[in-house]
């Protein structure tokens, strides 16, 4: 990939950090039985590693064609979820949420296939490092469309970053008021409920971990109503930080796509 090497390195570091964080989310979610979107976190782990490898070729960890298979599968998965979400619950927000990951997976596939074509051309004597602009397999209009869509979703996500703020306190207070431990969290859930019982200060301390509407029943991360989540069970795992991961990934992917114009 062309562009300043320091910038590619910095973005690769951010992607690795995002990957590690999402891997931690999966582990914490599994150990504490706290709901999170495991498929999204898993794909973020993979995307972070794959993008770091595209930005800094030394960081490539997969065999040729491996990532294409991974993201082809992920694309099919999110397409199925988007279709299922649309047919079961025609809520545009939830649908858009799945669509966001579908587009990200498609964009990953596009970038990987373009890089593979450029690499193949390089082995045949076509310019190597500069094979991106004007290279074989390049579809600038498609790349721009992906970049605009992903940056649009970044904005959409950033607009909703403040949405859990009120829900956070509401959920914490609701759980404290009810005095009920989450139903499926076992001992861990009970300790979390005790944690909540310390009141508003606890809510603030716990703030980034709780989001009202993003319940276990429906794994969308943002919304406006807090009450259902308080009744649904343990609070989802740090929805705001998850949103920040999506923002970081969206901006980085947008940059990579623009570099492929």
């Amino acid at each position, binding site marked *: 990939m*062309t*562009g*300043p090497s320091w*910038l590619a390195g910095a973005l690769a570091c951010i992607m690795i950090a995002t990957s590690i964080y999402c891997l931690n989310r999966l582990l914490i979610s599994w150990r504490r039985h706290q709901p999170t979107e495991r498929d999204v976190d898993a794909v973020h782990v993979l995307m972070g590693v794959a993008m770091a490898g595209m930005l800094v070729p030394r960081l490539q960890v997969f065999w040729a064609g491996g990532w294409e298979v991974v993201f082809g599968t992920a694309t099919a998965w999110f397409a199925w979820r988007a279709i299922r979400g649309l047919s079961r619950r025609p809520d545009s927000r939830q649908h858009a949420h799945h669509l966001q990951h579908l587009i990200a997976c498609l964009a990953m596939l596009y970038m990987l296939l373009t890089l593979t074509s450029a690499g193949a051309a390089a082995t045949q004597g076509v310019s190597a490092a500069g094979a991106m*602009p004007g290279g074989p397999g390049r579809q*600038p*209009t498609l790349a*721009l469309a992906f*970049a*605009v869509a992903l*940056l*649009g979703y*970044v*904005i*959409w996500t*950033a*607009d*909703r*970053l*403040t*949405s859990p*703020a*009120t*829900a956070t306190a509401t959920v914490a207070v609701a759980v404290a008021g009810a005095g009920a431990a989450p139903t499926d969290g076992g001992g861990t859930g009970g300790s979390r409920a005790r944690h909540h019982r310390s009141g508003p200060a606890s809510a603030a301390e716990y703030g980034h971990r709780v989001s009202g509407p993003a319940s276990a029943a429906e794994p969308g991360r943002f919304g*406006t109503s807090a009450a259902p989540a308080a009744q649904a069970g343990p609070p989802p795992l740090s929805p705001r930080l998850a949103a920040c991961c999506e*923002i970081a990934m969206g*901006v980085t992917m*947008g*940059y990579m796509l*623009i*570099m492929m*114009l």
Partner: protein
Amino acid sequence: MSEATATTSSAAGWLTGAAATSREGWAAPDSRRRLQLILAGIWLLDGVLQLQSFMFTRGFSQMLAGAASGNPAVIAGPVLWSAHLVGQHAVVTNAIFAAVQLLLGLGIAWRPALRLALGASIAWALAVWWLGEGLGGVLTGSASPVNGAPGAVILYALAAVLLWPSRRDRPAPFTAGRSTGPAAARLLWLALWGGLAYLALQPEARSPRGLSRMISGMAAGEPGWLASAGRSMSQQLSGRGLEAAVALAVVLAVIAVGIYLPRPVARTAVTVAIAIAGALWVAQGLGGLLAGSATDPNTGPLLALLALAYWPRRDAEPAAAGPGPGERRPT
């Protein structure tokens, strides 16, 4: 002491809007917020475009210096000075430019920072309009709406003013009038589209091959379908520069006054404005986005965004019952 703390807190609240959001939570975006988000998206795209390889080279400073040509010395001097500065520190200055634009986009999208980001975007846009775009070439005699006059970046500032989240909204038949009031907003519309009509009749634009040359110049380096559309437009306008310039100026003038007419006519004028913005964008080769050296998508999307802000509503938007995004509720 407590008064000083309250003042500081109030100032911080004004700057960040954090108090408002933490107290009042999140409301679904209304028409103005949706337009603000589109503006944020364009700023974010600008920031990413600023990270293209070309921008870190001396070619970028030469592009900036090019904006000085044809301008009076008082305008051209600072443009050349800033281009020289950027040329000497290409990597650092461009990284700062990109970071500022990324932050403006994310700031407008993140509600607590809305006012701060919109205010900063106005200051940034005015500085770039002069130092980066040479006032969009409006004083050079070669500017035309077709080649991006009066400069995309000044439209960012105008959009920020019209979409400003005022503390107390005024009743207005369109979104753009909620902060400034309908009379001032209509005046700004008249100035914008009337100004575009005037620029459409500049000497270079009304020369027989003027528009044709402008369009074919912007089609260079574009992908096949876009270059082909540009070439087709260019061929059709070849030798008919005067007629095309006059026709364009008349349409733009009609759009300018259309906002003062009854709602059905105003709605038609705004629809035509959106269509003209689309046509201009195609003529501008989508702002050169696909050619790898664009710093912004040019005026087309911004003109369309502004036109959407003037879309006449069936019922006048009432004054907001409560504060909008990033606004504080009076206590």
